[in-house]
């Protein structure tokens, strides 16, 4: 039996034949996909490609008010439509499915939401070419078994999904499992490839066992600390460890064996540095609603190591986005959510560096009602924003601390 997906948290063990039967028998489609079940999300993406319809991925933990802000709807039942069976071929086996998926129409697109820099999350769409730009299909990859360690509705998760899908690999869910379960899944399924954030790897350590089946480890989304790197080498003695730089707007762009990134010759003309900031050409980007110029400023500050060949290192981010374990949080969005609570006069959201998650969200609150407590703020926010955006430390102050220029301090 050849596994398509194993997800012990949702009690799913799906083989490729079941997937193909299930797709052949599906008669309805909804472009909006919001589900905590990985299989539902993956099947939905495959179906959208086969019937050539847009798919819009929503995080399963989006609150009702986030959904309304983002899409204008909180319920998506009205978008269900029948699948036109006459246009969709009946699939026979995995090979046929992959062949069909590898040549989709140019109109197909996948849309996801990312924390925007202006306070409102923004919509980003990718076509098949841009979402699979870094997918490598080869005989060598045929036997790979993927440990799936990202949220399936986020950019990184979708890229791992396509890498596994187009090579006909098995996907084993690791995201959201506890450490013991993760190690059990790696061993029992002989996982060969894992791609995850440094936070995910940090939480696996320390560990006295070794996992020889893992051949390839990829890390991205935040800085990878040298100590973690060293420990990882001991736990996964046969793994080649790679760091990647990626963004929701552009997907994976650079990879490196350490913290120095080199630019592949075919991309040299598509990236550009200005005042030590990284700019990427619009042809590398997904489509966003806001119009972008030819060059998009990533807000990432770099240090050039050598010019010929071009090599550089990331120093920090100029933007005010807070990276919480690989999830980007916009402090303005959190402030807006807190200010919506009656009795809050002013609020300042900021980050504090943290040994577990890289950064955590904190806030200072000026309240003008004694009804406001830490727990009343939390309860309110739980219905407004996703869990990882909710400040973990809430301080009540008489007035906010500001910088000399009158701007609120972010750090």
């Amino acid at each position, binding site marked *: 039996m050849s596994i398509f997906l194993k997800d012990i948290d949702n009690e799913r063990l799906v083989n490729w034949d079941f997937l193909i039967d299930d797709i052949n028998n599906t008669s309805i489609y909804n472009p909006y996909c919001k589900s905590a079940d990985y299989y539902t999300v993956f099947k939905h993406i495959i179906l959208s490609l086969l019937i050539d319809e847009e798919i819009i991925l929503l995080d399963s933990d989006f609150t009702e008010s986030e959904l309304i802000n983002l899409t204008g709807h909180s319920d998506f039942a009205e978008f269900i439509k029948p699948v036109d069976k006459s246009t969709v071929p009946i699939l026979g086996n995995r090979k046929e499915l992959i062949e069909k998926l590898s040549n989709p129409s140019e109109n197909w697109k996948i849309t996801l939401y990312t924390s925007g820099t202006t306070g409102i999350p923004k919509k980003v769409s990718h076509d098949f070419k841009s979402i699979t730009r870094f997918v490598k299909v080869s005989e060598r990859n045929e036997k790979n078994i993927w440990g799936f360690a990202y949220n399936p509705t986020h950019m990184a998760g979708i890229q791992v999904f396509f890498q596994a899908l187009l090579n006909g690999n098995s996907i084993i869910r690791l995201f959201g499992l*506890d*450490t*013991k379960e993760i190690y059990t899944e790696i061993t029992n399924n002989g996982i060969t490839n894992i791609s995850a954030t440094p*936070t995910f790897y*940090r*939480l696996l*350590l*320390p560990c006295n066992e070794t996992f020889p089946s893992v051949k390839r480890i990829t890390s991205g989304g935040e800085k990878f600390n040298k*100590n*973690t790197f060293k*420990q990882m080498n001991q736990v996964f003695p046969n793994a080649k460890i790679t760091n990647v730089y990626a963004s929701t707007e552009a997907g994976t762009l650079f990879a490196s064996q350490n913290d120095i990134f080199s630019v592949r010759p075919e991309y040299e003309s598509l990236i550009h540095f200005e005042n030590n900031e990284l700019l990427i050409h619009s042809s590398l980007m997904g489509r966003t609603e806001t119009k972008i110029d030819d060059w998009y400023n990533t807000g990432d500050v770099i240090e050039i190591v050598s010019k010929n060949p071009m090599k550089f290192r990331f120093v920090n981010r100029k933007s005010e986005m807070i990276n919480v*374990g690989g999830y980007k949080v916009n402090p303005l969005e959190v402030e807006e959510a807190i200010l919506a609570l009656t009795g809050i006069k002013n609020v300042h959201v900021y980050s*504090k560096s*943290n*040994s*577990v*998650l890289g950064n*955590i969200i904190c806030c200072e609150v000026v309240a003008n009602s004694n009804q406001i407590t*830490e*727990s009343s703020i*939390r309860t309110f926010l*739980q219905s407004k924003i996703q*869990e*990882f955006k909710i400040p*973990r*430390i809430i301080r009540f102050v008489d007035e906010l601390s500001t910088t000399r220029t009158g701007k609120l301090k972010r750090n």
Partner: protein
Amino acid sequence: MQEKILVIMNTVLDNRTKEKLTSITPEMHLRNDIGFDSLDLAELTVRIEAEYDIDIFEDGIVNTVGEILQKLENK
């Protein structure tokens, strides 16, 4: 000190509307027994640091209540 750590842990659990603990023992595993996830562990380290001025996860993740107590005692 064990009592104080219990109070801090219960603050973290309560913030996420998770069930509070009545007692802790050194053998208890932070994730498997108490049910802390990475967001909780991040908050726990900040709250312990505010109280004891030590970052318990500085050299890597600790797994049990006993390991935390030992770090604080060795301070």
